[in-house]
């Protein structure tokens, strides 16, 4: 395991929140971590499902965007607004 270098906040919504049983937690940041590696480390599966989107600090981002100390990382299941 890579060395921890601070932490991030992970947030879940809707079906994902209910499946995981939590909506927000602090998570150790390992160097080079991105949304995909956090998804896997959380035990959610190998790949982020189609339609699930990533927000970092409340902006949409690529799942390969490198995370920084203090980031708020959110996994957003398929949107159904309007």
């Amino acid at each position, binding site marked *: 395991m890579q060395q921890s270098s601070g932490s991030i906040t992970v*947030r879940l*919504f*809707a*079906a994902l929140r*209910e499946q995981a049983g939590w909506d927000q937690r602090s998570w150790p940041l390992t160097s080079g971590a991105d949304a995909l590696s956090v998804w896997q480390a959380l035990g959610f599966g190998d790949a982020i499902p189609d*339609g699930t989107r990533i*927000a970092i600090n*409340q*902006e*949409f981002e690529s799942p390969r965007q490198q995370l920084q100390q203090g980031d708020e990382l*959110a996994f*957003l*299941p*398929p*949107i*159904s*607004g*309007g």
Partner: protein
Amino acid sequence: MASSIPIDVALCSNAFEPLAELQQWPHHQSNAATGIFIGRMRSQGSSAEELEAMQLEHYPGMTERQLQHLASDAAASHGVRAVLIRHRIGRVTPNQALVLVAVSADRRGPAQRCCQALLEAIKHDAPFWKQEISRSGERRWIEGNTPL
């Protein structure tokens, strides 16, 4: 693209009346063209069962910012003069208003096209999630939107 025109966005945790919101919004009275869309909750769910209610979850902070951002982008790319968005959150019952989009412009084309494009943008790019609650108490998350 940013826009400096008046953009009025709000999330409503209680039932809202679209016509009352429009009544408070002066721009439809001072521009030559206004396009408006009102969306309400259907009484039937995605499997045609009768619904008791719907729960609308959002991402506090991001949702408001994203609506502002989508409205500002659409306003700039269509060259319109004012945009209003109201979107319901929380527990909604059938026939209650879910979304109101209004766009005022100098001409009918931009007003209508911007209203339509902004509604699609909201449906696809603003973090909202609908959970249907059937009369028997069953709850189901809706993934994606109804067809256009």
